[in-house]
C-alpha cells in the first residue's frame, strides 16, 4: 500500500465520527438523484411493456397530423378523423382488420354513488373494439357490449367502484348515462392502465355520447395481414389518406403513449425529488468543505511533519483528496442503495395514496447508477479541493510550533465578506421577488444567503455560544465552563456542526413556506375572483373526471332560489397560430358570479364572432377592443373573432372567453369544469346549497361547495403534494 493511501485509511479510521455529517449529506443527495432516475426508468419501462403488450396487435394508427396545445398542457388536442376512412382503409392490400377508436371522457359512478377515479389519472370512455387483437383491452369476465347501454369496464375500476357484471350504474359523459356492466377487461395483463379507468361501449353509443357529431373517431387502428410489416403497412396506407391525416406504426404510437404518460407522472415527482437532491448536494458541498477545512486545520502539525519528513505537496494534497473520495464513494454507494430504496418505496407508496404506478420490477439502468455516483464523487472532490491544496501548502516548520489556533471567529475579513454576502443575498432575493420577479435573481439570492450563513456561522456561533453558554457555569460548574470554552475554541467547527442542522431546518421551512404561500395565493385567488355563493365542480387537481354536464348549469339556474348559474367550459384553439385554452361560457352573466376586475368594452354581446381577452394576453398578443384574432379550431376551420371586451382578472376565468354559440360548431365532447352559482337576495347559504345539491344529484352528484369550502379544496391539492 503506498504512503498516501495508508495515511488516508489511517485518518479515516481515526476520524470516523467527524465524517458522519459529510457522509449523510452526500448520501441524501445521491439517494434522491438515484431514486429519481431509477423511478423514471422504472416508470418508462413498465409503461412501455404495458403499452407494448396491450397494443401489440395494432400495426398502424391513422390520425390527424395536427395538434393544438394550450400553454401548460402536456398533451395537445388532436382533431378527429372521419370514420368513413375505415372503408377506404379496408380496401388497402395488406390490411387485415380496421377499427375506429372513439375516445372521450366518461366517469363511472360507484355502487355507493361516489365517482370512481378522477383524482388525477384520466377517466376514459370509448368504443369497445370487437377485433380482439386491435383492442388493447382483453375481456377477463362476461362479454362484449352488444346493445346500447351495455359497457365493459376495466377490472381495476370495477373493483374500486364495487361494480360486478350485471350491475347497473351511471356513466358521466358528462351527461349521466345509465349503463349496465356486461364484462370486465384487463389492460396489458394488469387490471388497468395504472389507475386510468376505462369504459367500453358500443360504437353507436360512443359516437352518440363521446363525440360532438357521429362519424368521427379519435383515430383508426389498423392490423396488418400476414407477412406485412408495420412500416410496409404505413407506406401502403399513406397514399390513400386525405390531407392532414397521417399513419404511424403501432410501435411509434405505443412509444408516444409511453412517453406522454410517463412524462406526465414524472414531471410531478422528479422535479420535487431533483430539487431535494440539489439542495442536499449543495449542503454537502458546504459540509464537505467545512469538514475538510477543519480536518486540515487540526492536522497542521501532522501535515507539517509529513512535509518535513519528505512528503511532497502533492502527496499531502492527494492524501486529503483520497480521503474525500473515500467518503464520497462510500456515501454515494450507500446513497445509490438508498435511492433504489426510495424508488421501491415510492412504487409501493403510490398506489396506497391513490396515484397510479404500474407494476413491474425496478429498472436500474447504467446511467442511474453511474450519474449519481459521479455527481457524488465530483461534489465531494470539488469541495475538498481547496482544503486539500491548503493542506499541501503547509510549511514544514509548522511541525515544530504549537498547533495553529483556529482564529476563524475573530477574523475581521470574515465579518466583512460575510456581511457583504448577506447584503447582496438580501438585495438579490428582494429584487428577484418584489422588483422584477425573476427566478434567477431570487435563486442566486438564496444561494448567496446560504454562503453568507456559512461564512458568518463562526462569528455568530461565538456570540451565540457566549450568550447561551453564560448560565452553564452556574448550572454545571466546571463541566459547563469547559463545554462553553470548547465550543468557543474552534468557532468554525461549532458553526459547521450547527450549519448541517441549520440547512436541514431551512429546507423544511422552505418547503413549508412555499406550500403555505401557494395555498394562501390559491385561497386569495378564489376568494378574490369568485363572486358567487356556491361552486359546483369536479376534482380540480389533475386531468381526470368527466367534467360537468352542460345541462347542469341551466338546470340549476331554473331553481327558485338561484339568481345566476354560470358554467365554465373548456375549449382549445390556436389564436393567431399559437395554442390557447378557451373558456366557453355565457359571457353576459359571467360578471355576476366572477370578479373580472376592470372591463373595457362589453361582455354582453360577444355573439358568434366576438371574443373577450385578458389585459395580459392583450398586451402580449397586441389585442385591444376592436382588433381581430383568428382562431383555428380542432376541426381545422379558422374563423376571425373580434375582441369586444378586455378584462383584467383571469385567475378562474382564463385568458380567452367565447360564447357557447360560437363554440358549438367546433365542439368536441362538451363539459363544464366549474359552475358558479349566486343566490337571490335573502336566500341563506344552507338553503341554497341544498337546492343546488338536489339538482346536482341527478347529474352524477358532483361536489357542491360554498365559497370558503371551494377555496380550501382548491388549495388542498398542495397539501397532498407536501405530504409526499
Amino acid at each position: 500500500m503506498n504512503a498516501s493511501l495508508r495515511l488516508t485509511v489511517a485518518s479515516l479510521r481515526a476520524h470516523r465520527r467527524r465524517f458522519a455529517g459529510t457522509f449523510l449529506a452526500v448520501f441524501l443527495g445521491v439517494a434522491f438523484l438515484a431514486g429519481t432516475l431509477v423511478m423514471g426508468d422504472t416508470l418508462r419501462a413498465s409503461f412501455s411493456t404495458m403499452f407494448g403488450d396491450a397494443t401489440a396487435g395494432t400495426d398502424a394508427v391513422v390520425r390527424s397530423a395536427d395538434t393544438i396545445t394550450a400553454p401548460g398542457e402536456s398533451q395537445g388536442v388532436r382533431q378527429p378523423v372521419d370514420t368513413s376512412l375505415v372503408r377506404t382503409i379496408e380496401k388497402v392490400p395488406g390490411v387485415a382488420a380496421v377499427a375506429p377508436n372513439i375516445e372521450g371522457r366518461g366517469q363511472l359512478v360507484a355502487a355507493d354513488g361516489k365517482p370512481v377515479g378522477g383524482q388525477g389519472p384520466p377517466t376514459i370512455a370509448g368504443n369497445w373494439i370487437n377485433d380482439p387483437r386491435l383492442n388493447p383491452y382483453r375481456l377477463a369476465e362476461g362479454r362484449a357490449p352488444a346493445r346500447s347501454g351495455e359497457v365493459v369496464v376495466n377490472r381495476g375500476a370495477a373493483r374500486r367502484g364495487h361494480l360486478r357484471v350485471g350491475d347497473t350504474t351511471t356513466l358521466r359523459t358528462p351527461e349521466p348515462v345509465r349503463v349496465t356492466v356486461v364484462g370486465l377487461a384487463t389492460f396489458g395483463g394488469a387490471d388497468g392502465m395504472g389507475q386510468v379507468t376505462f369504459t367500453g361501449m358500443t360504437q353507436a353509443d360512443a359516437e352518440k355520447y363521446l363525440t360532438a357529431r357521429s362519424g368521427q373517431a379519435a383515430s383508426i387502428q389498423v392490423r396488418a395481414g400476414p407477412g406485412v410489416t408495420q412500416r410496409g403497412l404505413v407506406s401502403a396506407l399513406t397514399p390513400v389518406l386525405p390531407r392532414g391525416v397521417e399513419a404511424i406504426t403501432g410501435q411509434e404510437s405505443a412509444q408516444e403513449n409511453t412517453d406522454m404518460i410517463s412524462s406526465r407522472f414524472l414531471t410531478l415527482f422528479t422535479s420535487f425529488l431533483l430539487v431535494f437532491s440539489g439542495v442536499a448536494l449543495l449542503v454537502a458541498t458546504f459540509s464537505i468543505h467545512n469538514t475538510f477545512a477543519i480536518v486540515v486545520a487540526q492536522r497542521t502539525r501532522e501535515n507539517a511533519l509529513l512535509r518535513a519528513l519528505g512528503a511532497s505537496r502533492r502527496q499531502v494534497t492527494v492524501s486529503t483528496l483520497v480521503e474525500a473520495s473515500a467518503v464520497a464513494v462510500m456515501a454515494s454507494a450507500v446513497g445509490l442503495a438508498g435511492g433504489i430504496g426510495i424508488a421501491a418505496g415510492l412504487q409501493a407508496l403510490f398506489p396506497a395514496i391513490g396515484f397510479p404506478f404500474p407494476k413491474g420490477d425496478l429498472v436500474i439502468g447504467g446511467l442511474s447508477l453511474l450519474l449519481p455516483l459521479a455527481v457524488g464523487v465530483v461534489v465531494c472532490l470539488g469541495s475538498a479541493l481547496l482544503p486539500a491544496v491548503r493542506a499541501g501548502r503547509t510549511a514544514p516548520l509548522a511541525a515544530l510550533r504549537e498547533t495553529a489556533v483556529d482564529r476563524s471567529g475573530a477574523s475581521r475579513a470574515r465579518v466583512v465578506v460575510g456581511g457583504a454576502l448577506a447584503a447582496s443575498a438580501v438585495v438579490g432575493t428582494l429584487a428577484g421577488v418584489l422588483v422584477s420577479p425573476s427566478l434567477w435573481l431570487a435563486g442566486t439570492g438564496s444561494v448567496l444567503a446560504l454562503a453568507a450563513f456559512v461564512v458568518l456561522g463562526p462569528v455568530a456561533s461565538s456570540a451565540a455560544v457566549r450568550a447561551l453558554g453564560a448560565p452553564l457555569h452556574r448550572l454545571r460548574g466546571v463541566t459547563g465552563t469547559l463545554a462553553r470554552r470548547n465550543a468557543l475554541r474552534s468557532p468554525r467547527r461549532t458553526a459547521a456542526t450547527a450549519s448541517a442542522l441549520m440547512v436541514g431546518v431551512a429546507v423544511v421551512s422552505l418547503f413549508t413556506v412555499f406550500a403555505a404561500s401557494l395555498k394562501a395565493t390559491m385561497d386569495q385567488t378564489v376568494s378574490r375572483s369568485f363572486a358567487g355563493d356556491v361552486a359546483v365542480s369536479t376534482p380540480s387537481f389533475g386531468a381526470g373526471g368527466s367534467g360537468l354536464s352542460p345541462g347542469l348549469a341551466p338546470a340549476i339556474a331554473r331553481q327558485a332560489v338561484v339568481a345566476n348559474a354560470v358554467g365554465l367550459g373548456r375549449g382549445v384553439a390556436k389564436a393567431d397560430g399559437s395554442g390557447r385554452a378557451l373558456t366557453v361560457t355565457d359571457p353576459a352573466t359571467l360578471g355576476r358570479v366572477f370578479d373580472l376586475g376592470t372591463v373595457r368594452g362589453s361582455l354582453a354581446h360577444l355573439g358568434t364572432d366576438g371574443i373577450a381577452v385578458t389585459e395580459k394576453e392583450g398586451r402580449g398578443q397586441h389585442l385591444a377592443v376592436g382588433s381581430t384574432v383568428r382562431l383555428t379550431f380542432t376541426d381545422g376551420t379558422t374563423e376571425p373573432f373580434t375582441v369586444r371586451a378586455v378584462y383584467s382578472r383571469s385567475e378562474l376565468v382564463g385568458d380567452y372567453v367565447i360564447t357557447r354559440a360560437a363554440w358549438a360548431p367546433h365542439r368536441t365532447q362538451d363539459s363544464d369544469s366549474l359552475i358558479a352559482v349566486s343566490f337571490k337576495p335573502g336566500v341563506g347559504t344552507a338553503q341554497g346549497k341544498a337546492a343546488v345539491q338536489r339538482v346536482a344529484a341527478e347529474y352524477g352528484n358532483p361536489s357542491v361547495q360554498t365559497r370558503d369550502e371551494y377555496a380550501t379544496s382548491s388549495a388542498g391539492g398542495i397539501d397532498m403534494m407536501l405530504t409526499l
Partner: protein
Amino acid sequence: MSTETATKTAAGVTDAVKVYGSGDTAVRALDGVSVGFPAGRFTAIMGPSGSGKSTLMHCAAGLDTLTSGSAFIGDTELSTLEDRRLTLLRRDRIGFVFQAFNLVPTLTVAENITLPLDLAGARGDREWVDALVDVVGLRDRLHHRPAELSGGQQQRVAVARAFAGRPDVVFADEPTGNLDSRSGEEVLGLLGRAVRHMNRAVVMVTHDPVAAAHADEVVFLADGRLVDRMESPTPDKVLDRLKAFEART
C-alpha cells in the same frame, strides 16, 4: 575520534544570515555563522535561548531559508533548490528527530518507522529497518500506535525513523527535552552509536550539558554568532563554558 580535515562534510552553512521581520523590528537570528558538520561525527549546538541555535538547525536542514549565505547538504546548495527538490532532499538525505510530535498519531510504530521510505515509494532496505527495530528495542511494539507508547519509546521510534532511509545527516531538535534522564540517556546513546557504526553525521540542538556531553564536539552560539567550539565535551566543562557566557552577559 578523528578530526582530520579529510573527513567529508555531511552538512554545513557558510556566512549564514537569517533576519526575521523587517525595519525596526528586524531580528538577526543568525549573523554570519559558518560551520560544518562532518560525517561520522556527533555535533551538539548549544547556546542560551534566542542565540539562534534552532534557526541554524532549521536552515541547515532545509526547513527554512537563509536571508543570505549558503547552506549545504553534502555538495548540494540548498538556496538554489525549489520546493519539490528540497522536499526530495529532506526525504532522501536527511533524518529528523524533534522534541515532540515526532510521529503520525494514526499510523502504527512500524508504519511510522518506514514512513520516509513509503513516501519515497521505495522498498528501502527492509533488513536494515529490521535491524534498527532491534537496536531501538521496539520489536514488541511494532503494531502499537504512538499514543500507547511512553515518551522515551516514542523518541526511540523517531530515532529509528530518522535512520531508516540511511540519510547523510540526522538533525535532532532537543530530542531529550521531554524525557526523564534514563530515557534521555537511552536516546542519546542510540544517536551516538548510530554516528559511530554508520559513519553518519548527527547534529543535535540542546540546552542540556549532560546531553551535549554525548557529542564529539559542541559548538556554542550567542546572539546569532558562533562563539566557541569544544572537542570531547564533558557535562562539567560544558556547564562551565555556559556559566562563562552568563557571567559575561
